């Protein structure tokens, strides 16, 4: 088990109803964590349209999550 902090932005922030939470999970990768959160909170974006960042840097969907990591899921961007 590991403790993670998850921050939410944009459509995920609205669908989760908060900006940040801490979570105890067995999820080993961002993809596994997103699957867990999506099932619980009914996020509309499929996992393959969301990028992951850990500790304020982009990571692969299959990266290893460690205790204490700060995770952000990044919906499709739309700047400009």
């Amino acid at each position, binding site marked *: 088990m590991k403790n993670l902090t998850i*921050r939410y*932005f*944009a*459509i995920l*922030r*609205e669908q989760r109803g908060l900006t940040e939470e801490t979570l105890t999970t067995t999820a080993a990768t961002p993809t596994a964590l997103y699957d867990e959160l999506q099932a619980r909170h009914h996020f*509309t*974006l*499929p996992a393959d*349209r969301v990028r992951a*960042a850990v500790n*304020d*840097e*982009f990571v692969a969907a299959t990266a290893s999550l460690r205790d204490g990591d700060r995770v*952000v899921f*990044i*919906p*499709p*961007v*739309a*700047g*400009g």
Partner: protein
Amino acid sequence: MFRLSPTPLNPADLAQALTDERAGACVTFEGWVRSRNDGQSVFALDYEAYPLLAEKEGARIVAEAREKFSVLAAHCVHRTGHLAIGELAVWLGVTAEHRGDAFEACRYLIDEAKARVPIWKKEHYAGGASVWINCATRGDHVHLPGQPA
């Protein structure tokens, strides 16, 4: 230089930082909030950013532009928060000895910033609906024409 701004952008103020007697070319780009998108009448929009990663990724894009093109300065400032029609959403300024590099670097910066920087746009429509752009999924109640269902 890449930065986010929660307050309105003033192009004249921003351009002052570009002054350079070595420069023979200055290209600036302004992205404005327009009143229609995909056939919908837009009332206003919100930009939300992931500040730390947006500024990191923006700085990487500026560094790439400086590597690929021979430029003197390359600046990009992106608004966050609530914007009305006609407001300035993004401002870019590039200087170079020659126009070719200035034009190409400016194009590279805006194209990469739109594709990579974690900034999100929520459009508010005249009818009251609002949508996070690029985040539509099958089954959404608000379906924009021209996007796959």
